[in-house]
């Protein structure tokens, strides 16, 4: 899958290249607006990650040029401006999603996955990881066929973690997906940690194999083996 990253900050651009390449994406990087403009016009990509504030050509300009030619390619904009107006401008110009700097790489990956599988997302009825089974319709959880009693929020957190199967989920993502909190609220971090601790007590402690892992400084992941 070909991904174009237009980002003038070299460190960020390089880390994106490395990180995305490690995830098996074919990454091209443009460091200036001009370069991005040229690449967007000359080649076809499956996804464009676009910084809004660029020297030379502004990200919005590249976006509208791209949209004139091709309405399909999903575009994710990166912005340091988190003011509402900037997000609106970006989305109005045809961006499919935005991410505010600083962002968690885990979240970027999740967004990319969501954007590239748009349209062909089947509504799962049940999720499973190892011996953990989640019945999304009946809101029931079992592990090793033993029912586990979870509160609604605990269920939401576990579902979010399992859904992202194997990839790290940041606290910001949990806040957004489980608590529907778009404006970022610090106290929620502690609330999330409490819920994770409770989930561990219920889902992991009674069993020999641990499924919920903390990736320090990044977030949480549900995985079968402790790599």
């Amino acid at each position, binding site marked *: 899958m070909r991904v174009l990253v237009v980002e003038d900050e070299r460190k960020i651009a390089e880390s994106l290249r490395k990180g995305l390449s490690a995830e098996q994406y074919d990454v091209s990087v443009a460091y200036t607006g001009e370069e991005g403009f040229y690449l967007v016009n000359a080649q076809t990509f499956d996804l464009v990650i676009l910084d809004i504030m660029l020297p030379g050509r502004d990200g919005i300009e590249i976006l509208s040029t791209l949209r004139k030619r091709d309405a399909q390619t999903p575009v994710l904009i990166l912005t340091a401006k*988190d003011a*509402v107006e900037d997000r609106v401008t970006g989305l109005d110009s045809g961006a499919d999603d935005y991410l505010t700097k*600083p962002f968690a790489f885990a979240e970027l990956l999740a967004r990319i996955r969501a954007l590239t599988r748009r349209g062909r997302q089947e509504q799962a009825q049940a999720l499973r990881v190892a011996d953990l089974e989640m019945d999304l319709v009946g809101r029931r959880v079992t592990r090793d066929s033993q029912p586990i009693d979870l509160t609604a*929020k605990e269920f939401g957190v576990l579902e979010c973690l399992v859904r992202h199967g194997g990839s790290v989920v940041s606290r910001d993502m949990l806040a957004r997906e489980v*608590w529907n909190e778009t*404006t*970022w*609220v*610090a*106290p*929620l971090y*502690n*609330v999330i940690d*409490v*819920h994770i*601790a*409770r989930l561990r007590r219920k889902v992991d402690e009674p069993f020999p194999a641990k499924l919920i892992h903390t*990736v*320090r*400084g*990044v977030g949480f992941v549900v995985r079968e083996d402790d790599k």
Partner: protein
Amino acid sequence: MRHWSIRARLTVYYAFALALIILAFCAGIYWLIRADLLQQMNAQLSQDLSTVSRAARKEPEEAMEVAEEGLVTLFVLQSQGRVIATAPGWRHEGLQSARPIAPGIVQTPQHRVYYTKQGAAHTRDSRIEITVARDGEPLRHTLRSLGLALLAGLACALGLALAGGYVLAGRVLAPVGAMASTARAITADRLSDRLPVHNPDDELGRLAATFNSTLARLEDSFDRLRRFTSDASHELRTPLAAMKSVGEVALRDEADFAAHREAIGSMLEEVDRLARLVDSLLTLTRADAGTATLSSVPTDLSGLISEVADCLRALADEKQIALSVTEDADVWARVDPVVLKQAVINLLDNAVKYTPQGGQVRVSLAHADGRATIEVTDTGPGIPREDRERVFDRFYRGGKSRSSDSGGVGLGLAIAEWAVQANGGNIELADREGRGCAFRITLPSEKGGGVSSS
């Protein structure tokens, strides 16, 4: 004139007023003296007339003797339009061919001006018309000299007035100039300087006092800004220092992969802390700049509080804190729910954070007299009386007991204060006499959905 200095304008106004007064005064003097001189002339002419007439009443020739004696030198006698006698002086001065230039005034071909007066003398058989004249030059000369003298005086007075006015205005305005140069010397670094107030009751004293109070306010806000900046830098430096040392130590160690992971994770935690801090600072900066755009929608406060309480209940449960919510149902207010929620979250989060295990946190919502009151009380250590004033200050963390290991950076209450005030409400710390904290938010509100969308 608008571009002139105040000094020049004052001087000109002053001189102009003075010139008007002096001019009126001079004109008065001139007219008085002139009238007096003319009256004298008239009296002399009358006297001449009666002298000539007395002589002519006997014989016209006798009148000539008057001329010869030099009593009256300029006269002419006529009878029925015919000249019967002329004084030698009359002819000599060329008065016979003089033409009148004004009533009672004639001018000779030699451009000399004479004042004349006519009368009549009755002899036994005829009526003799007498015209006497007197030289007008001495009178006119006197008046001319007087006029010139007065004009010269006027010019001198005007000059003096201008000079004096300029000096006076300068003296009056000198303190203003001094004030200006003092004020010019006051920069951001010297905001503690004040203008000297010589007389607090006069206009300049009041001006200086006003200026000084403005300076005091400026100094205060500069101080706060300085403190804020230094606090902010300190708070920013702490996670930076942690990141630097963790990173450096991890590099020195010939440690294994897991240890490096641990170090990187630790650094990422600090990055999160930094990001949170920067986010809070941005919120406050936007609040200060007034660029935060708030919505105003009818909001169910009861619902908002329940939502926040439910959200944070997990934290309270962890510490076995009893979190209770008592509320009047259906209290509505026109606010920005996202911003107001942040205030309530911050208050409740603080309450849970600082209340010891097994304590109590209570949230209540009441409605009275068109105002909703949200109260968050806890059974924590409370806030020392001497710190009450500073509770809402940025980076206030209340001494050592509320140190940074509680996780906050001390901006929560500052943000809460802004959030409540921006929604037209008020936030205060109620006195609980050492029985924990009680924060009270009051907002203009309605009961029973009265502020429904309109």
